């Protein structure tokens, strides 16, 4: 279980550019939760995932993973609990390394790296088997450099690398947004398969409300750094896009009326 307790995050605190990116976030991610995360641009979705992953620390509040207080743990140290896939397919893989070298890097996530062989023969069989599930023919191309692959192939490989070792939580930050629609659907299908098979605890940011409703057991909506909606179970399965839009316009409307009150 992962718990965020009263987390706050500012950027450029004290300057004219001050951004209050996370405002008192309290969130309990239960084991097996598949949470979809929505919200307008700049709502703080990526900041939330970055805070969990340790890319930066919250200004106040605590984060615990399986009863470890990881609030001050750097990103590389939290990696043994956390796997990530980014929007940019180029961020998840090493272009000048081969497919098998990339997978071998991933199979040691969070473990000590010593003077053993970088890619072991015993691992190659695992790689071929796992690549086979992608149906992209990559199992025949272990020695090809990853730079030769298309964006979709690289993102599929990144999904595989992220889940090679079961993480406590899988963080997906708009991981299909940079792909063409057909490839995006394939990667989405792959995501749902992998998460389902391994019962992975997952947070998936998406800007597609239909996807947010169709996938996962729980949905949260962020607005100006606050969680303004957190639904799960049957309540979530009954949600419609209209409900979400309504919700969204309500908060925006409140702000508008507040602004106009300030003006008068």
């Amino acid at each position, binding site marked *: 279980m992962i718990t965020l307790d009263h987390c706050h995050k500012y950027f450029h605190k004290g300057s004219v550019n001050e951004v209050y990116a996370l405002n008192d976030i309290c969130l309990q991610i239960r084991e097996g939760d598949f949470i979809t995360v929505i919200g307008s641009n700049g709502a703080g979705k990526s900041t939330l995932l970055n805070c969990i992953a340790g890319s930066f620390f919250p200004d106040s509040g605590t984060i615990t993973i399986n009863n470890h207080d990881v609030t001050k743990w750097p990103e590389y*140290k939290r990696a043994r609990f956390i796997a990530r896939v980014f929007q940019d397919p180029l961020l998840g893989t090493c272009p000048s390394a081969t497919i098998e070298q990339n997978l071998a*890097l991933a199979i040691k996530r969070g473990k000590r790296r*010593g*003077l053993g062989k970088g890619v072991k023969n015993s691992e190659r069989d695992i790689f071929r088997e796992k690549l086979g599930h992608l149906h992209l023919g990559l199992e025949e191309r272990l020695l090809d450099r990853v730079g030769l692959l298309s964006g979709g192939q690289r993102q599929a490989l990144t999904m595989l690398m992220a889940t090679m070792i079961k993480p406590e939580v899988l963080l997906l930050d708009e991981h299909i947004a940079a792909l063409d629609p057909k490839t995006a659907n394939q990667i989405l299908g792959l995501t749902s398969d992998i998460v389902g098979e391994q019962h992975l605890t997952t947070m998936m940011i998406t800007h597609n409300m239909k996807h947010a409703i169709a996938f996962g057991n729980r949905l949260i909506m962020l607005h100006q750094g606050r969680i303004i909606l957190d639904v799960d179970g049957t309540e979530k399965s009954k949600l419609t896009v209209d409900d979400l839009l309504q919700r969204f316009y309500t908060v925006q409307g409140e702000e508008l009326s507040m602004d106009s009150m300030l003006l008068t």
Partner: protein
Amino acid sequence: MTLYAALGAVEQGLVYGIMVIGVYLTFRILDFPDLTVDGSLPLGAAISAVAITGGINPYLSLVLAMGGGFCAGVATAVLNTKFKILHLLASILTMIALYSINIRIMGGPNIALLGTPTVFDAVSVLGVPPYLAGVVVFALFAILVAVIIIWFLSTELGQAILATGDNPQMITSLGVNTHTIIILGVGLSNALVALSGALVAQNQGAADVGMGIGTIIAGLASVIIGETVFGTASIARAFFAALLGSILYRLAIALALGVEFGHFSFNPSDLNLITALLVVSALIMPNIKKRLMQR
């Protein structure tokens, strides 16, 4: 060019080739332009010379020199990673500091190694003629260093070093502390540069505080020549290309110093200009090739 001059150039190319392997490690693998080398080359020479004159075994003196070089690299990398100083500036700071440190180590700006034991004694005993001793010893060292580095980069740790240069975000999210990797890599690189300096000192019979000037430029020139001529299709190929690039570079310099146009000929002091022109031509060659192919 006489055969004797050519042999001298090959010898230089091999011994400085060890330095070039170090430069390749930082410049290309870690994407960390490191000027520390201008200081760590004479550092290695100074440590080795002082150790040998103090009665220490010449091979052991090489190990000490490498230890010194490693520390110099660590200093630069720590300034960069922990204190957020730009890599170029961090390495210049270490380089400048090493100038003073090297003089302190030697007790003066230079130190002679006359009649002291050196690593060349062993091959002379084996019956290798003196004019070949340098080439044989340096070839052995250079090839050994290249093979060890290529093996190291194929290990789990080595693969993490390659990934750190390639995609630091990815390797961080796979649990690797990139700061540690950069400190290790830049340290290792400077250990090799110091080894190169120590061997040069033992060969020319002296260590001098000024012998490191232009090391980084010679290193880059060699790297670029090697890449252009021999390619970088694999890690093994890239490192041997760097080593061979070093030999080509020294041959080109020897050739340039030998040519005469009427009354004009190059001086050794023109070396920097020649090197700069070499690097420029190596850099623009791929472009020219491309344009010619399109015609």
